[in-house]
């Protein structure tokens, strides 16, 4: 079946005698046992819940994996994966990571004796130089957030396996519609499902899919032991959002491509990061390992103040963290989503302070460009002598 069909054609309620079209919400904490010492397929919703099972199985199929697991947030999913490590183990991660992931790796895991090092995963040699005998997990996002760099997943997977480590890929910016990291050699694919998978800014959820049964058993053990699984109602909303994934992303991606080209031609824009642009350094690799460039892009204006004014002047773009929703959002990553990057990590990455990130929604493209044009005009009304370079310290 084609992807569009797979999204909507699956058993939404296995075994249910009423055959509903929407998966029932099993909003229950516990399940009655037929006998005192024998459990049915479900006993307690932390350990397993029928609504969540439908979702987890569908995600495993869409990611070409063996088993899927859903968590109460993307960070809960990432945390669960890091629990595979022990004290003394090391993580080597790409330097352009979501701020929350950096915070977890650097400020939380260090308390349990796990260290994380960062290097540019686009440069395999530099990245490989960070790997030691104690490295157990390589970790990356592709395309990265917010610089939209493209990392060669297959190369890093080979590096991981040559060193006896696992590769985990946060594929939130792509979703299984556009990219399947497990097919490229990754051992674990992660999603903040809050983004494209759910797509409506109304659920926080995380996903882990693996292809190895032994790894699946460990993830399940940790999910149950730590109690980080997704609740039944959120699982229902997730399932509902997932059905329009292709439709939403097709539209968002088309809008993003048009917007990236529009921004590239705009006199107030100094650079645009979007792997769908032929001029982008990641263009060829992106089209080799994924089926599209996605709907997140970022750009610089050359002035922090101009970027800030422009962002605040938009009316159709909500200023908020998160991305991937049907409504367009705009942010200044340096001040918002990536403000939690510890300074010592920040030094590894070149995050321009005037960087503006846009997640493109499904509004009409003419309304979006009209809104941005107006915002640029507002930003231009006050002359601004401060350049991005001079201003970096203020925002960092």
């Amino acid at each position: 079946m084609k992807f569009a069909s797979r999204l909507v054609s699956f058993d939404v309620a296995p075994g249910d005698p009423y055959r509903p079209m929407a998966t029932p919400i099993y909003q229950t904490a516990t399940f009655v046992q037929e006998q005192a010492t024998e459990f049915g397929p479900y006993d307690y919703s932390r350990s397993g819940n029928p609504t969540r099972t439908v979702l987890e199985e569908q995600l495993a199929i869409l990611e070409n994996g063996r088993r899927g697991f859903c968590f109460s947030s993307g960070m809960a999913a990432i945390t669960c994966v890091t629990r595979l490590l022990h004290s003394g183990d090391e993580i080597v991660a790409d330097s352009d990571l979501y701020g929350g992931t950096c915070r977890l790796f650097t400020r939380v895991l260090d308390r349990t004796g796990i260290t994380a090092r960062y290097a540019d995963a686009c440069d395999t040699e530099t990245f490989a130089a960070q790997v030691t005998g104690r490295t157990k997990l390589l970790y990356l996002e592709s395309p990265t957030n917010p610089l939209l760099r493209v990392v060669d997943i297959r190369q890093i997977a080979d590096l991981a396996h040559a060193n006896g480590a696992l590769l985990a890929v946060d594929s939130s910016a792509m979703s299984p519609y556009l990219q399947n990291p497990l097919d490229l050699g990754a051992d674990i694919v992660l999603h903040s499902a809050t983004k494209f998978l759910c797509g409506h800014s109304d659920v926080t959820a995380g996903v882990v899919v693996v292809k190895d049964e032994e790894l699946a058993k460990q993830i399940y053990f940790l999910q149950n032991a730590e109690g980080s699984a997704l609740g039944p109602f959120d699982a229902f909303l997730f399932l509902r959002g997932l059905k329009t994934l292709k439709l939403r992303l097709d539209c968002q991606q088309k809008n993003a491509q048009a917007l990236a080209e529009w921004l590239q031609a705009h006199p107030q824009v100094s650079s645009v990061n979007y792997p769908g642009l032929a001029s982008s350094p990641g263009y060829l690799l992106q089209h080799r390992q994924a089926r599209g460039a996605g709907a997140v892009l970022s750009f610089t204006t050359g002035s922090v103040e101009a970027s800030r004014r422009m962002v605040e002047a938009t009316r159709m773009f909500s200023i908020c963290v998160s991305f991937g929703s049907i409504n367009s959002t705009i942010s200044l990553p340096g001040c918002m989503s990536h403000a939690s990057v510890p300074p010592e990590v920040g030094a590894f990455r070149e995050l321009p302070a005037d960087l503006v990130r846009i997640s493109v929604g499904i509004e009409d493209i003419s309304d979006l460009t009209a809104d941005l044009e107006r915002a640029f005009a507002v930003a231009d009304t006050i002359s601004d002598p401060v350049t991005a370079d001079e201003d970096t310290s203020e925002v960092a």
Partner: protein
Amino acid sequence: MSNEEKFQVSTLAIHGGRVPDAHAEAVVYPIFQTATFEQQETGVTKGHSYSRVSNPTVDALEQAIGALEGTPQAVCFRTGMAAITTLFLSTVKTGDHVIVSDVVYGGTMRLFREVLNGLGIANSSLDTSDLVAVERAVTPQTKIILIETPGNPTMKLADIAGIAAITRKHGLLLAVDNTFLTPVLQRPLELGADISVLSTTKYIEGHHATVGGSLACSDEKLLERFRLVRKTIGAIQAPLDSWLTLRGLKTLPIRMKAHSDTALTIAEWLEAHPYVARVYYPGLDSFPQKALAERQQATFGGMLSFELKAGPAEAIAVMNALRLWIRAESLGGVESLVTHPATATHADVPVETRQKLGITDGLIRLSVGLEAAEDLIADLRQALDLVFGGNSERSADHEVCQPAR
């Protein structure tokens, strides 16, 4: 976002009538799952007193539907039938007369036969594609005309502007059940209708997850009347269902485009199939009212029906052989559904009436979902092959379709 600004429909579906959450600035409006609201002082509220009367989440949905319809805040109901019931309880009384399209949802026919007729409200069910017949049916007691276009299930169209001219001339109200197309594909109010009726269960919510209905119009007095009746009979939509519907509404324009594109592909495929006698789809050149569809609709929508050259037994057998298409009532959701109108949606319509309207026992209705057209066609092909033996469609390659359910 103010409604005065002119936005494209795909933008309106997301931002139109958006009610900002004043409390926490949440991007998504909260679910006010509450029955009642605290009064500041005795009798003084902040606009909401009791959720049978109004509720902030229901308001948010109504603002959004109003923005899409181009009207003030719409009025939302627990079901589509609750909306239609309220429509008539608000506009007619004993002794009055109503004109209704003959090809309408069976539940609307039942409402008259089993409920309103007994209260002394008469109705004429007639072919509303015939403007002369419509005008001839108007009596001094006639108060309102309700049309469904395209009509369920044979897709018969009514000329909205033509009927609006008649209702204006005679001082009647015109209500259009726009469930099959939604305001994204057809704008009844701009064509002269007074009231737009929607079963939001269908395309508006779009995920087969809720039941609901709405009434929209520009006449504030009529809207007030709808709200009064709704409050009196207790027919308001629930907070959670309103919220889910609001969520569905945002992807309505992109869904309608996909539904329409795929439906046209399937209609053309079916029409070329040697075992298919006729296909009812306004986008086909063979559809007698195609010109009218092009005039009053943006595209042709996601609903179609067809008849086999063989009889009802074969139609049922084909339906039972389908694996991807789901046998279920309702329509307009992401999953493709197949329905047998004679025994399901129109089972309550007397058999003679059904025959007269073309709702034969061999008619199969399709609600085209968001699956890939190739997969949907492959499933229809294997079902036809199975029933009629061998390769029923001689020229086509046989594709393998994964059994879905």
